[in-house]
């Protein structure tokens, strides 16, 4: 009888602990992050001016050009002027650039919050440059490198992912660009057309988390 009680107690503990483990590890977003057509959750990240930024702050936006980028990756640096130009071109028609630095400054001191502020000032960034504190947002998106673009469109369901990948077909040399993938995608959204190329790839620096 005593043995049965002990066995029952053990079984209860085992079953309960299984539940506890499950609740500690809720089903995470799949390792691959967002795909085309997924709804991106809102963010709340600190901008270089110290204020928190969310998509919901932009009542008039039609969507967002979200770019994971940083100070230290040469491909990011090579694209800074292009990112500023994108913001200038599309902010006023409803698609502002939101730049997010996903790197951990402990791994990459050149990507610290202070360094971000400095770089933004030097280059005259016209867009928010957000710090992914604790490196929590980039894995949700599935970003793996800098620069890595996610184009979102505001829909009734939420901010829908419409394009993922590269800014254009030559990240190393702006003068050699032939196809502007991201601009083509935004232009398609603006004119209500289907985006022809929804996913592209480019060489980038692995994110240092």
């Amino acid at each position, binding site marked *: 009888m005593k043995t049965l009680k002990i066995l029952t107690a053990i079984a209860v503990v085992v079953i309960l602990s299984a539940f506890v483990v499950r609740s500690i590890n809720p089903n995470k977003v799949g390792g691959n992050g967002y795909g085309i057509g997924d709804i991106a959750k809102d963010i709340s990240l600190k901008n270089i001016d110290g204020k928190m930024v969310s998509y919901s702050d932009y009542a008039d936006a039609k969507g967002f050009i979200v770019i994971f980028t940083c100070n230290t990756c*040469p491909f990011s640096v*090579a694209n800074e002027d292009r990112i500023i130009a994108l913001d200038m071109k599309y902010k006023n028609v409803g698609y502002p650039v939101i730049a997010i630095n996903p790197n951990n400054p402990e791994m*990459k001191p050149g990507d610290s919050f202070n360094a971000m502020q400095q770089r933004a000032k030097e280059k005259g960034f016209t867009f928010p440059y957000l710090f992914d504190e604790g490196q929590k947002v980039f894995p949700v998106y599935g970003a*793996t*490198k800098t620069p*890595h673009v996610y184009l979102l469109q505001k829909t009734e369901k939420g901010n829908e992912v419409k394009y993922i*990948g*590269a800014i254009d*077909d*030559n*990240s*190393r*040399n702006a003068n*050699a660009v*032939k196809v502007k*993938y991201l601009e083509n995608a935004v232009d398609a959204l603006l004119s209500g057309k289907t985006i022809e190329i929804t996913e*592209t*790839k*480019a*060489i*980038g*620096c*692995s*994110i*240092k988390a």
Partner: protein
Amino acid sequence: MKFYAFIGILLLISCKGGNPEIVSFEDLKEDMSFVTIDYEGLEDYLEASEAAVHVVNFWATWCQPCVKELPHFEELRATYGTKDVKVILVSLDFPDQIERLTHFIEKRNIQSEVVFLDDGDGNSWIPKVDATWSGAIPATIMYNDEKRSFHERSFTYEMLEKELKLFL
């Protein structure tokens, strides 16, 4: 006759003394520490028909984790180079900063074969290297004529050797 002998001697002298600044094209090629290729050229390295195991690493001099793991690839070459293992380092450095690559190879005395991939349109060739590659570096392919594995990550020497042994 005397005249011709004189010319002959002159020629001999000039050949021996030589014009040191004039080097043949073949010599030049040997002096260069890497070859420059586009993606079409890279395909030869990704689908070599020999029986050897190929370890192809994508890197750049400005990529910190790449530079950190590079000695492991050098060690792999030194250890397994005689056992039909070929290590190829594919540099993705910027074309206008190519002297950085030259300098790096010399300074670090890199022994593995280095190729410089001068092909900016990554979207056209990254998926051909591997469908799962996002384009982040470092990235490494291992293959022989039977199988192939792709890794978008950094390696320690132990991990690299373990992976290689699956092919030996």
